[in-house]
């Protein structure tokens, strides 16, 4: 295989060499425990606080509103469980959408078992939630509303600022999972009116295993991890110094280059979307055409199943992902695609491409041509396509 083309940046991204350079000293001589009193400990503490400042600057918060965690999933878990724990006397109802990441959805399912009531607001067919439907779901005893900023599968961008504004005078706290958003679209907590926001470094060319939760000043939260007094007693664990430094460096770079990168990604995305929809018959774009992440394209190809497509793409050196059942080992297609109202058999034939800025025009040609060839090859094997050709009865 001559060249590998990575189109799965929504799953994770490569580590930026500049970020790695900043991390390296903290993996070598800078091993001191940041809680220690001697110099190498104090140096680590200082570097961590600088990183906290960089994260805060990147999202428009104050440094003391940033708490480092081990992942985006941990941040989501902490936000939901922590608010429930701190405010259960104010109410036991929470609101979310039906396209959240599993790190949110499965936490809410767990909360239901703990005696909380959760309303899952369905999104519209374009993958965007209607603000008024969120507000209709909010009750007097609602303590938390959690809506993701951008969806991980279909890339749709949710009206977070509008929801935040509408919730201003309500007791309910507002959490957003911004894991996919940072580095792709502007994220400013003061403009969004959110109380809690999750992010993770490895989605914007930082290291894996380092996330953060923004907690607005004054918001109480129960602890997920108990132990030492790290993160102002809210999150025990010896700090992952190198990871935190990497997060700080990566988010600063991502936000500085946001306009340039998102413009590039948008151009790539639009070319690929237009070409695939035009050149591959019976292809559908999942999620809103405009209000989506600059680097996300998600297609459904009728009459075929997604896993076969991914396996063939891999043989062509193209790394992508699918909302397909088979990849996750479950028989159900992705909850996100079903939430768009796609029929099961169509949702099974989905492909997510999440681009990087390094993709060339030549790469795009190769990718589109490969998709065309593979989709046709799988259709030639598909009894559904055969039925369609014979009867032309299946509705589009």
């Amino acid at each position: 295989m001559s060249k590998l083309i990575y189109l799965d940046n929504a799953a994770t991204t490569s580590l930026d060499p500049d970020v790695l350079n900043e991390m390296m000293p903290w993996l070598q001589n800078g091993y001191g425990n940041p809680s220690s009193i001697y110099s190498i400990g104090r140096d680590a503490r200082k570097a961590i606080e600088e990183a906290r400042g960089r994260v805060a600057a990147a999202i428009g918060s104050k440094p003391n509103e940033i708490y480092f965690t081990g992942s985006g999933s941990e941040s989501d878990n902490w936000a939901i469980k922590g608010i429930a724990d701190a405010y259960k006397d104010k109410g036991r109802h929470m609101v979310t959408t039906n396209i959240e990441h599993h790190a949110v959805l499965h936490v809410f399912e767990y909360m239901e078992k703990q005696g909380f009531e959760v309303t899952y607001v369905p999104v519209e067919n374009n993958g965007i939630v209607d603000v008024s439907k969120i507000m209709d779901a909010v009750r007097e005893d609602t303590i938390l509303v959690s809506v993701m900023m951008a969806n991980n599968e279909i890339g749709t961008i949710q009206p977070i600022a509008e929801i935040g504004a509408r919730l201003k005078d309500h007791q309910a706290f507002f959490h957003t999972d911004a894991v996919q958003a940072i580095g792709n679209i502007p994220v400013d907590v003061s403009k969004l009116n959110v109380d809690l926001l999750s992010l993770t470094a490895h989605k914007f060319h930082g290291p894996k295993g380092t996330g953060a939760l923004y907690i607005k000043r004054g918001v109480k939260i129960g602890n997920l991890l108990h132990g030492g007094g790290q993160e102002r007693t809210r999150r025990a664990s010896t700090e992952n110094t190198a990871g935190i430094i990497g997060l700080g460096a990566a988010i600063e770079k991502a936000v500085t280059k946001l306009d340039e990168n998102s413009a590039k990604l948008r151009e790539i995305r639009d070319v690929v979307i237009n070409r695939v929809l035009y050149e591959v018959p019976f292809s559908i774009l999942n999620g809103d055409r405009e209000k989506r992440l600059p680097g996300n394209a998600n297609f459904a190809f009728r009459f075929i199943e997604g896993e076969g497509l991914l396996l063939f793409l891999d043989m062509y050196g193209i790394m992508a992902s699918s909302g397909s059942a088979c990849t996750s080992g479950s028989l159900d297609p992705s909850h996100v695609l079903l939430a768009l109202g796609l029929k099961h058999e169509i949702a099974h034939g989905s492909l997510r491409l999440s681009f990087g800025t390094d993709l060339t025009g030549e790469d795009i040609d190769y990718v589109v041509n490969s998709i065309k060839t593979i989709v046709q090859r799988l259709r030639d094997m598909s009894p559904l396509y055969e039925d369609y050709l014979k009867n032309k009865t299946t509705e589009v």
Partner: protein
Amino acid sequence: MYSEKVMDHFSNPRNVGEIDNANAVGEVGNAKCGDIMKIYMNIEDNVIKDIKFKTFGCGAAIATSSMATELVKGKTIEEALDLTNKAVAEALGGLPAVKMHCSVLAEEAIKEAICNYLKAQGVDIENYNKCENCCRGD
């Protein structure tokens, strides 16, 4: 996660296609679950002279269809009815646990085609002792 054999049969499936005047056709599975297998056979003198398949499904679904057609091609109806999903999976060097249902579907598709053939031949399926596992869909 797939064995080399599975990848081989997925990327170079044997016996893909249709048979225009097939005298035995069977289709199992449904699109909602993400797998459909359709088998075409030409049976002459009790022997499967030719066999083709079409499959909508994951890599394992395509590979098990391909392997199942290979295993019964040239066999008598009775031999083909002895096919088990385990034999298909073993011939492929094993399948991930979550994909075992694909081998079950492949076995069922072969038996469904034969069942339909026998019925068209006027064979009393109820009392056809070799067909315990076929015609399950009826």
